């Protein structure tokens, strides 16, 4: 009867003899006699712990891998232990506790749970990616720790016995569960999540079912568990999801006989897809509840960012765009940065998502009647367009025309001369070339030039549609308010929140705008810039009219538009100069930090190539006067502009004469004042 002890690690135990029930065992007479003679020596039999022996016999033999893992986990635990020493732990908890039964109970469970609690609280406040990585390493450490604890420490006898007795006896399971406190269940669930995650990451194909278990865990009631579950599933998905779009096999394909490999892959793919779908649905549902709002949004955004080529990306995009204007700042920031990265990394999704995202945003602007947070339109600034979208169209058409004409003529001329053989050879060559091109196209993932251009044209039209809608909305709201005296309540974001980013975007994208619309655009800008804030009823502050900085921006954008379209036509912008002249009067120092004023002065006055002496003189005089009462930044910009104007306009230097009464130029200034205020 060879029974192996635990201490013999290297030698696997010999096979046990078959189990014989006690009644069948026959004792020989000699044996009985021997025992009766030596009862003293036989007392050890009563003291044998049959339970322990049974347990040790049923243990699996220790292989080399197990030993290696134990050593590794030991090392890691040691390192963690060193790190853990920095964290404050209550010294009472470090000492072992003796329960009433006389059993020693080491309080390591509480320690790690405290650590975990502290960490999760911190992490939930921290930045986004850190939480994932911290969680991962933390979970990994916990997983190793739990493995080590389960296997090595002999002093953890009572707990181990309890755990070991679970498996054979399901009846005791319920009792044991009640005994474990709530913290321990929390701990257990976290460990379980960590284990499943590790399994999945190490070998996704084999362990794909654990994904479902992870999802089950995240359906718990405890909010922290749900959040941790969602985040860990997110981390797993980020790593597992393949670089291609999964297409489920059709019925025909399912009926076909396939090899084992293919069956395995199909099963893996379909399970992955189902789990992903369930996860997404859960996220969408949870996002509506305020408790999970941030976490769910974070998961959605990370997924969209990481795998924009995968299935269900449309649904992801819809939910992300829906939150692009939420009042919660964290959520909004997340969504905006995701969409911005989508626009800049077009390679990942081949440009289709750009079009969709832009269209969704445009629809949202329309439905909300332009009452959104400005961030939602600022994302448009990250879109990049090819420079020659519009031009290529016309060139292509011309080329096609010319080519066709030439070809027809040539063919008619050469038909008589050509040999039959040469013709067929040429046709074969062209056929081969076409086939090669088609094959190449099928393999590459990039959309070819035509498709890309089409998509960019759609995007562009959606962007401009949004901008023009915002402009028109602003116009209407101004027009209405001058008629009705009742001040309607502005939305949560102010009366014209989207106007500023809209104007910036227009200034950036004017090159792509068709010449037809520039005239309309200039008209609108003129009207917007000249809308004054003088209302009949001076008591009511009509907040719907444009502020000074908005009007300044309109003038600025008009100039930028004109400058970028110089090759088309150089339009005189006298009206905008008049507006600027009046706006300088109304400018109260200390509104924004003066950037808008500085930029408008620079672009309108300093860069202007047309030198009108009267106008320049009038501006010099007004700017010099206001430099005395503006704030620091604005007066600096005013003085720089004055210097610039005086340097360029020789005649204006007469203004610097010191004669009393203004010298030779005073008359002209009076005229220019009148001239600029004429309209």
């Amino acid at each position: 009867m060879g029974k192996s002890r635990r201490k013999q690690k290297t030698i696997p135990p010999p096979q046990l003899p078959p189990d014989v029930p006690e009644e069948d065992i026959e004792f020989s007479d000699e044996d009985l006699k021997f025992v009766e003679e030596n009862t003293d020596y036989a007392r050890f039999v009563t003291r044998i712990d049959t339970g322990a022996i049974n347990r040790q016999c049923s243990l699996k033999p220790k292989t080399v891998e197990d030993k290696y893992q134990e050593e590794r986990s030991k090392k890691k635990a040691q390192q963690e232990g060193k790190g853990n020493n920095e964290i404050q732990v209550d010294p009472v908890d470090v000492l072992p506790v003796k329960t009433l039964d006389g059993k020693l109970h080491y309080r390591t469970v509480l320690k790690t749970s405290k650590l975990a609690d502290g960490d999760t609280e911190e992490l939930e406040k921290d930045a986004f990616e850190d939480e994932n990585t911290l969680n991962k390493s933390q979970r990994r450490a916990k997983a190793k720790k739990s493995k080590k604890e389960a296997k090595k420490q002999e002093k953890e006898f009572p707990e181990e016995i309890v755990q070991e007795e679970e498996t054979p006896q399901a009846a005791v399971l319920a009792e044991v569960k009640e005994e474990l406190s709530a913290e321990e269940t929390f701990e257990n669930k976290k460990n379980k999540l960590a284990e499943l995650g590790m399994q999945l990451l190490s070998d996704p194909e084999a362990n794909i079912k654990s994904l479902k278990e992870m999802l089950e865990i995240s359906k718990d009631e405890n909010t922290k568990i749900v959040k941790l579950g969602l985040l860990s599933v997110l981390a797993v998905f980020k790593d597992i999801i393949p670089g291609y779009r999964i297409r489920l096999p059709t019925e025909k394909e399912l009926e076909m006989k396939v090899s084992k490999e293919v069956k395995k892959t199909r099963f893996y793919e379909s399970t992955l897809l189902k789990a992903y779908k369930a996860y997404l649905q859960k996220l969408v549902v949870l996002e509506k509840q305020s408790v999970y709002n941030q976490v769910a949004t974070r998961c959605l955004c990370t997924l969209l960012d990481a795998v924009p080529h995968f299935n269900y990306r449309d649904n992801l995009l819809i939910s992300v765009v829906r939150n692009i204007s939420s009042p919660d700042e964290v959520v909004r920031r997340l969504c905006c940065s995701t969409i911005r990265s989508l626009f800049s990394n077009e390679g990942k999704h081949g440009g289709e998502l750009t079009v969709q995202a832009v269209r969704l945003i445009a629809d949202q602007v329309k439905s909300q009647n332009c009452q959104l947070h400005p961030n939602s339109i600022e994302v448009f600034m990250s879109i990049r367009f090819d420079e020659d979208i519009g031009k290529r169209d016309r060139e292509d058409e011309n080329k096609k025309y010319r080519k066709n004409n030439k070809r027809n003529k040539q063919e008619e001329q050469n038909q008589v001369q050509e040999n039959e053989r040469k013709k067929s050879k040429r046709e074969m060559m062209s056929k081969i070339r076409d086939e090669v091109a088609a094959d190449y196209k099928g393999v590459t993932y990039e959309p070819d030039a035509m498709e890309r251009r089409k998509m960019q044209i759609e995007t562009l039209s959606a962007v401009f549609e949004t901008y023009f809608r915002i402009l028109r909305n602003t116009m209407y709201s101004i027009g209405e308010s001058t008629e009705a005296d009742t001040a309607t309540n502005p939305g949560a974001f102010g009366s014209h929140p989207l106007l500023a980013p809209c104007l910036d975007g227009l200034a950036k994208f004017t090159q792509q705008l068709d010449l037809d619309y520039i005239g309309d655009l200039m008209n609108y800008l003129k009207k917007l810039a000249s809308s004054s804030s003088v209302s009949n009823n001076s008591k009511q502050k009509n907040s719907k009219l444009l502020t000074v900085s908005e009007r300044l921006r309109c003038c600025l954008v008009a100039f930028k538009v004109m400058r970028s379209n110089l090759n088309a036509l150089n339009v005189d912008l006298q009206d905008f100069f008049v507006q600027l002249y009046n706006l300088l009067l109304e400018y109260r120092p200390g509104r924004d930090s003066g950037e808008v004023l500085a930029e408008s002065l620079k672009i309108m006055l300093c860069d202007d190539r047309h030198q009108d002496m009267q106008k320049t003189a009038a501006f010099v005089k007004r700017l010099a006067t206001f430099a005395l009462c503006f704030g620091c930044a604005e007066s600096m910009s005013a003085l720089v502009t004055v210097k610039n104007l005086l340097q360029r306009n020789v005649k204006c230097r007469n203004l610097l004469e010191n004669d009393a009464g203004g010298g030779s130029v005073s008359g002209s200034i009076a005229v220019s004042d009148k001239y600029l205020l004429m309209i």
Partner: protein
Amino acid sequence: MRPLDENETTVVFEKLFKFIGNNLKNLVENPSHEGPDPESGRYCFRLQKNRVYYVSESLVKRATNIARKNLVSLGTCIGKYTHAGSFHLTIMSLNLLAANAKHKVWLKPTSEMSFLYGNHVLKGGLGRITDSIVPGDGVVVFSMTDVPLGFGIAAKSTQDCRKLDPNNIVVLHQADIGEYLRDEDEL
């Protein structure tokens, strides 16, 4: 010399309106400081030998002392009636028009001479142009240094101008200051 009657006044004002638009009232109500009177008089229009003159009232009073056949010209001549009975603005009204013009066009230095010889303005010669020009509007032509060179009728709107070929006509020539040399006898 006689003042203009109803029809003639309407015709003259219509022509002027094409060029200066609503600033017409400036033209009519301009206070004049000529003459020894302490109060400022106004400007008015008078017809003499098929030519329309823009004169201050004080000058008109004194001009009545001269016999009709001896009176050659008074004030500023702004235009004349043809044999057929239609009214044309002449180059001598340029100062008035330039001061109150609504629609302006600036020429590049290279194409100034071409305009001064009596040619139309091509798009390639355009330096700048005011917005909101409608075909058929009166346009005053300036050089880049803001010297008025003449006037004409717009052939295209500003919007259409953007898309034109550089050799298309933008402004049809009506009068330019080169006529002082070319048509000395007729003025």
